[in-house]
């Protein structure tokens, strides 16, 4: 008997005792009982009234909810130790480089430093996303490769943050103090709401997606104008054309990254490549420029980069090479052709 068969027989027997077995399962069980006197003995023992009672009592002696709490606590400590290990390395590096005060929250992976001018800068490096709480209790999720800066001293009067990268904001409502996100060419002004801003310095587009509430957009270059965004709308500002366009979208596609979900819906491969590079901290080289225009659709939750490359290979009919590395400082290199 194989292990898998033992599991299957057990499940059949459980169904049999509770009167839920199918004809085939019953027959399978009967054959098994007939095969060997030892099987018959086991069967008789487990299906007897006293056998059932004593098994149930043995299970009753185990306190599963208490055990789950204990396990969850052990798991939490285990994860903490793992991330503390990472922090120790980061702390040593910062000490060597000589950057001032370093405050580490070990549960999230970001770099948090305070410069002498009272500016606080928070960075989530490629391949990591993190959640932070600002002094006004607003919550910000930073996507990989993102830097957020704000003035600590004046934040209570002047809720302004500078963003390079992508972040999802859940802003607490303070009517007297609007909350402003400054991107290079665009300001996003809000009272209390949740929205996503994507403004990587190397991308042409700055995108703002509104989930709830209302925001006001203000272009700084060219003819300065104000735009109002409604929930479910996305604004795209082109840094090259200096133009802003607004359209309705499925917001979850743009905000799902904060839950660890990556959604591509008719995304061009060049967009996919950029997202994957930030998300997984890998470098991707595209050998054949035609690949850049291929469209890709997928919803990805906690997949390895290798699985995603396999998915792209099959759905877009391309090939790729992957070079893994044991050195954490050298990212994985992928070539698509």
């Amino acid at each position, binding site marked *: 008997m194989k292990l898998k068969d033992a599991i299957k027989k057990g499940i059949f027997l459980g169904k049999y005792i*509770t009167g839920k077995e199918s004809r085939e399962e019953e027959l399978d069980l009967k054959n098994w009982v*007939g095969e060997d006197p030892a099987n018959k003995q086991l069967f008789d023992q487990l299906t007897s009234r*006293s056998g059932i009672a004593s098994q149930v009592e043995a299970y009753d002696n185990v306190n599963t909810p208490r055990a789950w709490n204990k396990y969850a606590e052990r798991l939490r400590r285990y*994860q903490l130790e793992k991330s503390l290990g990472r922090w120790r390395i980061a702390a040593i590096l910062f000490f060597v480089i000589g950057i001032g005060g370093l405050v580490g929250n070990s549960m999230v992976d970001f770099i948090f430093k305070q410069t002498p001018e009272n500016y606080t800068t928070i960075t989530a490096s490629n391949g990591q996303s993190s959640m932070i709480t600002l002094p006004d209790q607003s919550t910000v999720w930073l996507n990989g490769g993102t830097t957020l800066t704000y003035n600590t001293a004046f934040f209570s009067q002047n809720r302004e943050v500078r963003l390079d990268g992508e972040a999802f904001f859940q802003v607490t409502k303070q009517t007297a103090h609007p909350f402003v996100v400054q991107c290079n060419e665009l300001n996003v002004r809000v009272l209390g709401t949740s929205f996503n801003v994507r403004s990587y310095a190397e991308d042409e587009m700055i995108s703002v997606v509104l989930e709830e509430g209302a925001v006001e957009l203000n272009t700084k270059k060219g003819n300065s104008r104000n735009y109002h965004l409604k929930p479910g709308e996305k604004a795209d500002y082109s840094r090259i054309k200096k133009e802003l366009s607004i359209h309705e979208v499925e917001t979850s596609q743009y905000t799902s990254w904060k839950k660890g979900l990556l959604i591509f819906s008719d995304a061009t491969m060049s967009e996919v490549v950029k997202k994957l590079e930030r998300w997984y901290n890998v470098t991707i080289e595209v050998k054949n420029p035609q690949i850049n225009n291929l469209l890709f659709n997928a919803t990805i939750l906690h997949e390895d980069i290798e699985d995603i490359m396999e998915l792209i290979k099959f759905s877009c009919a391309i090939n790729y090479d992957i070079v893994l590395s044991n050195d954490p400082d050298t990212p994985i290199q992928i070539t698509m052709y």
Partner: protein
Amino acid sequence: MVSSNRIRLKGGERLDVQDFFYDTYAGFTSFASKYIADVAICEDIVQDVFLAFYEKPRSFENLFQVKSFFYTSIRNHCLDHLKHQKVKDKYKEFQLKEDVEVDFFFAEILRVEAFNLVYKEVNKLPDAMKQVLLLALKDYSNSEIAEQVGIAVSTVKTHKARAYKILRKNLDSLMLFFISWLRGK
């Protein structure tokens, strides 16, 4: 860092770790207790294996492989422990009769898998009804049950009738049917 109790196995099947824990923990502990008498040690071993599982959920194709991993790991941990504790007699017993240990291993898996299901059904009953069922299975009379649980005899009867519905009708008489079926074969 995103943490979630839901994982996906290689074959595509989804598994909620907390549900899985609740469905199997008592069974795994009972499985380990057939190797090691001290239940506290058994629970520690099962928890260790859950932590090991947390480290590599993605290396399993399906639920069978996950369960195989648990049974094999728990058994190995238990045998290691016995070896370590120098509980010579017991360990020798397993070692000398390796094929006996293997049979024992499979029989125990079968028992635990069966009773994970039975226990889930029994636990759907209200407390008093479950108590009545357990006493009835142990052949207590209605008046004895009434006294123990602190309810009227008439209530015992209705509880019993309802509780028995979660079990196969006439388990015993079916055994007789079995025997006649085997003889006919």
